């Protein structure tokens, strides 16, 4: 079967093409849905082709692992609520990083084993005692007993490092978003410790890449890399998680590309590099939306900014649902500002129902979405789309900010840091400089909030104490339900 290697290579080529075309289609709302299907076909093709590679052993193990992995992920991915999507992306991304690290580990371990075979202690190199596995097959990416070239070894180690960091880091991001780890973990000198960890990991990596490989050293290398990912992510606050997840997504892409080079698999190189570049750009866009550099997000230990925070004068003034409903029913323009709280409470359907009642009364309703509202850019758009809110009612920050001055009521549901005026007025505030939605310019502001606590970033919000702000305490879903009922009784 001479044509088989060509056919397999062809499958990889088509897969890479489908990935790029799929991503391209995903970047426009009209064709987005088809995009993932294209990419999906590419993946299926590549995976199927891999089974026919020459010299593949352990097929039973491979099939078992694929079936278990696909089955579990498919099941969890289908079942999970839309609101939990960000952490699921983090989780699946971490798995990819872990897989890249595992590839690196297997390559390194077999490299050590082959070194021992090639230069067995006591047997000269010229010995005719050569292992049978020396036969080099045309398509076999890593001929079993031919040692990796220095470049392959270096990229393999680098990919493993990046993959392992992405793995443990993404799992922490997942745990944080899932609410399993709601405290930031900070101690004095953390940055130094982290940098030291990374430095040691890199030194060990260089040792591995320059031929001093041994199994204990490999184990140490991975332990350091995993620990670094863990330590690097623990001090980062939840508000920065979108940027972090996006960064780890790019990391995993790079790790995959590097391991693809080691394995001689072009589809992996192309797909991984495309994701690495796209993910890096996406990370930059997100960090820019928060007015922070990526380095600042990673090493700035959010919330530890110097200086005294401004004291906030005044008190939070409550309002009840009936008054709030009346206020909006007779308003001319209402802007609804959703945030993560709406996602947590699954309130998007109720909120849309409320907005529809207002629209029916002739009130001009718009939804204002901050670039980093929720836990990922576009998170709120996804949720509102799920509830059926049409595109043209959704405005982004630059579009809506001038309109707040002519807005009668701004209804803030579960958003906090993205509407905090301290970002403009208090240089000591950790979110100082972040562009915000200027809701305080509206005539009245109603904030739906579960309690009096601070937001995810742990910062007091001056908006809640402003003279034109009224607080409607309650879970987003319940509060929206009450508003709907209050409006309905108005109509009766």
């Amino acid at each position: 079967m001479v044509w088989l290697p060509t056919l397999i290579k062809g499958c990889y080529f088509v897969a890479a093409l489908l990935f790029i075309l799929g991503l391209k289609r995903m970047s426009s709302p009209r064709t987005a849905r088809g995009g993932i299907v294209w990419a999906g076909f590419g993946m299926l093709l590549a995976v199927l082709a891999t089974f026919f590679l020459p010299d593949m052993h352990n097929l039973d193990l491979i099939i078992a692992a694929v079936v278990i992995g696909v089955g579990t992920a498919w099941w969890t991915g289908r079942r999970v609520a839309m609101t939990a999507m960000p952490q699921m992306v983090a989780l699946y991304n971490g798995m990819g990083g872990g897989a890249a690290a595992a590839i690196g580990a297997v390559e390194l371990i077999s490299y050590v084993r082959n070194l021992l075979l090639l230069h067995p202690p006591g047997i000269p190199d010229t010995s005719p005692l050569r292992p049978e596995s020396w036969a080099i097959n045309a398509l076999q990416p890593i001929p079993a007993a031919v040692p990796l070239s220095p470049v392959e070894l270096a990229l393999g180690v680098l990919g493993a490092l990046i993959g392992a960091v992405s793995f443990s880091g993404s799992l922490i991001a997942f745990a944080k978003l899932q609410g399993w780890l709601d405290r930031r973990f900070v101690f004095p000198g953390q940055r130094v410790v982290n940098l030291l960890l990374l430095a040691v990991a890199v030194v060990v990596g260089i040792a591995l890449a320059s031929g001093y490989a041994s199994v204990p050293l490999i184990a140490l290398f991975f332990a350091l890399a995993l620990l670094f990912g863990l330590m690097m992510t623990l001090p980062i606050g939840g508000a920065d998680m979108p940027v972090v997840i996006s960064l780890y997504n790019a990391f995993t892409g790079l790790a995959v590309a590097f391991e693809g080079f080691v394995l001689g698999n072009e589809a992996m190189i192309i797909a991984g590099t495309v994701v690495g570049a796209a993910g890096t750009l996406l990370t930059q866009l997100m960090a820019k939306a928060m007015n922070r550099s990526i380095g600042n997000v990673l090493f700035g230990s959010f919330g530890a900014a110097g200086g005294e925070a401004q004291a906030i004068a005044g008190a939070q003034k409550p309002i009840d649902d009936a008054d709030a409903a009346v206020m909006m029913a007779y308003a001319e323009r209402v802007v609804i500002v959703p945030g993560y709280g709406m996602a947590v409470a699954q309130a998007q359907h109720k909120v849309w129902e409320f907005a529809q009642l207002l629209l029916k009364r002739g009130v001009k309703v718009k939804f204002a979405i901050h670039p980093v509202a929720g836990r990922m850019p576009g998170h709120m758009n996804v949720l509102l789309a799920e509830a059926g809110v049409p595109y043209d009612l959704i405005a982004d920050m630059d579009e809506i900010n001038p309109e707040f001055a002519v807005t009668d009521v701004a209804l803030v549901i579960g958003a906090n840091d993205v509407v905090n005026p301290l970002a403009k007025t208090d240089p000591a505030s950790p979110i100082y400089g972040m562009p915000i939605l200027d809701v305080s310019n509206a005539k009245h502001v109603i904030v739906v909030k579960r309690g009096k606590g601070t937001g995810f970033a742990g910062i007091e919000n001056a908006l809640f104490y402003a003279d034109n702000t009224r607080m409607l305490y309650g879970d987003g879903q319940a509060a929206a339900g009450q508003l709907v009922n209050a409006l309905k009784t108005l109509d009766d």
Partner: protein
Amino acid sequence: MIDGFLALYIFMLAAFTGYEIIARVPVILHTPLMSGSNFVHGIVLVGAMIALGQAQTPFEMTIGFIGVLLGAGNAAGGYVVTERMLEMFKSSKPAGGKESK
């Protein structure tokens, strides 16, 4: 094995491709696109399969097995999540078309 410079060219071109794809994307698609690119690097599954396919000792096989497991999770999970997100965009489209001015 791939020639070093050929690989470098592939890296370069693929990096530009990735950059270009993202450069003009509306904010609403950022999350689905991040999820979509998360799916695309699920190609790591292929690499993990190759690694496990060449593993010879039980130790290598164990790590390879974990790698395939994780890679399969990345690919399948990434697909499902992305598809679910994009599905909602489709269902809301006709409504958006009708109610627009």
